[in-house]
C-alpha cells in the first residue's frame, strides 16, 4: 500500500505536464477542429529556443518568457501559413499537414542545435521532499509544475467563460458562419486559439525538459500520453484534458513502479483503444442534441 501511494505521488508532476500538453491539443481542436500533431514539435522547438536564451541570460525565468513568446509566435505561423491554406480545401489534409510540420520542426531543430541529448537546467530541487522523518517521492519542482498547471487552467477557464474573447473562441469553434454574422473576426479568433495553444505547449516543454532531456525527438512519447489524455477526456473539454492528463500520469507511474517504464506507452494505447470501444465521445465529452 505504501508503494502504491508513493507511485501515485510520483506521478503527479509528470501528470501535470501531460495535462498541459493535452490542454494544448484540446485548444487547437476547439479552435479549428484539427488535432495538431505538430504541437509537440512546436514545444520542442520553443524549448530549444528557451535553452539558448537560458545559456545567454543565465535566467530560467527569462528563458520561460522567451519560450512563451516563441510558442505564441510559432502557433500563429503554423496556423496562418500551413493550416489555413490547407484546411480551406481539406480537413484531413490539415491533420496530415501537422505531421509534416512536426517532421520539419524536428529536422530544423536537428540542423540548428544538433541531434544530441541536451540537459536542461533544473531551476528547483528535483529530489524528493524530506518531511516527517522520511523522503517523499514528490519534489519542490513537482509542486511548481502542479502550481503552474493549476494557474494556467484557472486562467484559461476565466478567459473562456468571463471574457468576450473566450466567448468568441467558443462560438467560432461551434459555428464560424453564425460567429461571423455576430461580428466576430473568425480567422483572427482561430489564430489566437493556436497562439494560446502554442503558449501552453511551450510552458509544458520548458517544464518537462529539466526532468527528461532535450533533443529533436525527446518529447515524442509525451505526445502519445497527451493525445491519449486529450481523446479520453473528450477532446473538447479543458477539464477532461486536465483530469485525464493527471490520470494518465498516475497510471504511467503505477505501471512504471510495478513493472517497467517501457510498458507505459503500451498501457496508454490500450487505454485509448478501450476508450474508443466503450466511450468514443470521451469521459467528459458530450453529444449535443437539438430539437428542430
Amino acid at each position, binding site marked *: 500500500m505504501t508503494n502504491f501511494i508513493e507511485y501515485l505521488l510520483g506521478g503527479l508532476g509528470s501528470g501535470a505536464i501531460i495535462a498541459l500538453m493535452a490542454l494544448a491539443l484540446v485548444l487547437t481542436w476547439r479552435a479549428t477542429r484539427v488535432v495538431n500533431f505538430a504541437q509537440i514539435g512546436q514545444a520542442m522547438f520553443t524549448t530549444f529556443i528557451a535553452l539558448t536564451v537560458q545559456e545567454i541570460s543565465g535566467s530560467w525565468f527569462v528563458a520561460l518568457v522567451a519560450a512563451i513568446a516563441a510558442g505564441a509566435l510559432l502557433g500563429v505561423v503554423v496556423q496562418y501559413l500551413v493550416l489555413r491554406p490547407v484546411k480551406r480545401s481539406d480537413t484531413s489534409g490539415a491533420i496530415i499537414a501537422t505531421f509534416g510540420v512536426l517532421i520539419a520542426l524536428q529536422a530544423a531543430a536537428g540542423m540548428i542545435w544538433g541531434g544530441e541529448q541536451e540537459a536542461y537546467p533544473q531551476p528547483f530541487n528535483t529530489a524528493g521532499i524530506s518531511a516527517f522523518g522520511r523522503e517523499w517521492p514528490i519534489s519542490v519542482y513537482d509542486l511548481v509544475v502542479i502550481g503552474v498547471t493549476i494557474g494556467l487552467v484557472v486562467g484559461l477557464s476565466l*478567459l473562456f467563460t468571463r*471574457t468576450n474573447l473566450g466567448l468568441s473562441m*467558443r*462560438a467560432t469553434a*461551434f459555428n464560424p458562419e*453564425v460567429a461571423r*454574422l*455576430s*461580428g*466576430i473576426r473568425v480567422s483572427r479568433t482561430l489564430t489566437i486559439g493556436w497562439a494560446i495553444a502554442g503558449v501552453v505547449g511551450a510552458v509544458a516543454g520548458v517544464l518537462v525538459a529539466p526532468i527528461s532531456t532535450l533533443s529533436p525527438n525527446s518529447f515524442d512519447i509525451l505526445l502519445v500520453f497527451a493525445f491519449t489524455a486529450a481523446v479520453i477526456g473528450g477532446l473538447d473539454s479543458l477539464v477532461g484534458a486536465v483530469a485525464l492528463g493527471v490520470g494518465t500520469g498516475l497510471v504511467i507511474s503505477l505501471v512504471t513502479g510495478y513493472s517497467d517504464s517501457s510498458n507505459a506507452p503500451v498501457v496508454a494505447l490500450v487505454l485509448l483503444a478501450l476508450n474508443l470501444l466503450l466511450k468514443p465521445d470521451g469521459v467528459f465529452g458530450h453529444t449535443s442534441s437539438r430539437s428542430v
Partner: protein
Amino acid sequence: MSDADSINLLELDEIKVKLSGLQILDGVTIRVPHGLVTGLIGPNGAGKTTVFNVISGFVKQDSGSVTYDDKRLKHIKAHHLTKMGISRTLQGVGLFSTLTALENVMLGGSAQVRSGILSQSFAMPWTDVETERLRIAAMAALEEMGVADVANRLPSELPYPLQKKVALARALVCDPKLLLLDEPAGGVGAADMADLERLIRSWVPQRTVLLVEHHMELVMSVCDLIWVLDAGKVIAWGTPDEVRNDPAVLAAYLGEDGAA
C-alpha cells in the same frame, strides 16, 4: 409605386451571381425603404437566400452594386455587418449549443467590444466593465423578447419558439438599423404566429426589416412592401395587395394553369 431612392436604407442594383455554372441571380434590383417591413418572397430556388448572402458578404456578386445607408459597399465582410448596423438571423435558429442563452445574445454585441486581445487575455479590469456592459445589453434584449427568465439555460433545454426568440434577441443586441430575417416563421406554430407578427411590427419605424419568408399569411399581414423573385429575377413588387393579384406572381407560385 414611385421610385424614391432617397428614402431607401438598402438598395441592390442589377445584382448578378453565377454559382457552379448556374445563374442564381440575374440582374436583381431591390429597394428596402427606411422604417418599413419589406418582404422578399418567391418559390424554392428563386434566389432569396442568395440575395441575403450577397448583402451579408457570404457570396460575392459578379456584377451589380449594393448601397446601404447611402454608401456603396464594395467588399462586404460578414463580421463588419453588426458594426454597420445590420443584423441577420439564419434559417432555423443558429444558436451555439454549448453557450447559454445569455452568452449567445452577448455574442451578438461582440463588435461593440473595444478592448484588445492582450487586455482580454490578461483579464485587465476595463475588460470586465465592457463584458458587464455587454451582459446588461444582452439581458435587456432578452427582456424585450420576453425570455429573460431562460438567460442561463442552454438552447437545447428550450422549446423551439423560445430558441427563436433568443436568436432574435441576439440580432437585436447590437441595436441594428436593418434586420435581415431569414424565414422567421419557420418552425413557429400557429399559436405563436400572431406574437411574431406583433413583434416584427413593433420594430418599425425605428428599425428597418427585410425578411425572407414562405409563410404567405405572415408576409401579407406584416409587410409594407413585397419583392417577388423567380428563377433569379424580380418578377413583381409592390404592396401586399398589388403582389397578391399580380398575374406573374400567381403564375410563379401556382404554375401557368393555376394562374389561368
